[in-house]
């Protein structure tokens, strides 16, 4: 019989300890889970890695950009722009609501972009402009 031993109380205690150790004294912000137009466009037309991998016969389970996304998360945390547990809490909330139907790791990326926009770290319009530039660059070769 499978068992799990981590209780809610224990998790809360660990989270508190982690936050204290990480020097993150600020209280958690519940994310604004209302849809963001740009990200909704990506949701409707974006092709997840699990579809692309099947189409192209690739066996790597992760997209090449996954580690880069992790590094972005870590670099944001180390400079106190977006504290780790705060980001993960936001990601958990958004994963259970707005982005529930998106597979991983695309879901994590969408939650990251969503959180960064809502926190004012990037602006939705400038992100859309930058995406157009990146698209032109990556498809020009």
């Amino acid at each position, binding site marked *: 019989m499978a068992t799990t031993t981590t209780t809610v109380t224990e998790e809360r205690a660990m989270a508190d300890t982690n936050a204290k150790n*990480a020097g993150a004294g600020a209280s958690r912000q519940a994310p604004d889970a209302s849809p963001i137009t740009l990200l909704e466009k990506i949701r409707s037309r974006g092709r997840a890695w699990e579809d692309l991998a099947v189409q192209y016969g690739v066996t790597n389970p992760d997209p090449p950009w996954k580690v880069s996304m992790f590094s972005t998360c870590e670099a944001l945390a*180390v400079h106190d722009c977006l504290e780790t547990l705060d980001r993960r809490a936001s990601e958990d909330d958004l994963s259970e609501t707005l982005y529930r139907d998106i597979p991983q790791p695309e879901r994590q990326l969408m939650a990251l972009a969503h959180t*960064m926009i809502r926190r004012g770290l990037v602006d939705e319009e400038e992100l859309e402009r930058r995406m157009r530039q990146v698209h032109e660059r990556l*498809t020009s070769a």
Partner: protein
Amino acid sequence: MAEKHKAAPMVDEVSDFEILEAAVRELAIEKGLFTADDHRRFTEFAHSIGPLPAARLVAKAWLNPEFKKLALKDGVKASLEVGIDWLNPTGFGTPSDYTDLRVLEDTPKVKHVVVCTLCSCYPRPILGHSPEWYRTPNYRRRLVRWPRQVLAEFGLQLPADVEIRVEDSNQKCRFMVLPMRPAGTDGWSEEQLASIVTRDCMIGVALPHPDRKQDDKRPIHPAVHPIQHDHGHDHDHGH
């Protein structure tokens, strides 16, 4: 000897998600939230980690009862003894999976195995990257329902009187298994012991064996009934 090379399949399409990842990163760098070098160093770290520190932790616990007590009580503190600081494993920042580590001790009657049913949480700083199968729905969904059957599929047949405990990882707590020290290893050094503690032993889907090491060459067995491949003459599969 030159041989014809057939290119491995590649995804020849730029997805909106790939573009989004690049755009977010580039904007963050331009705004000075972090530097390109910060990002590169984290990426380099992510590609450099492996299971050896965890294997050393197990070997130390086998040899030193006091260290074993520490490992079971405070995995994060014990990790320091094998060079892993969970609060700062890269040496230059807090990682995304900064969390708590719990070491699960196997006994003759209890076998632990680790999973992440939600996604792919894994003790990366001390155990490296998760294997592909760890991230499959097959493993994640079935292990918690039919642990004995799934372990048997890994070749691990456990007696009926051994209880199997499945620990479900989460964003705040990660697990690794401290397997039982196998017979036939009396008098071995820490280095010798660490060499037989493979990644799978610490996930819990395998048991250490004195004849099976981390860096053993994988045997290649000829097929009993070989099938013909369409590119059979282009490659030498024996190397």
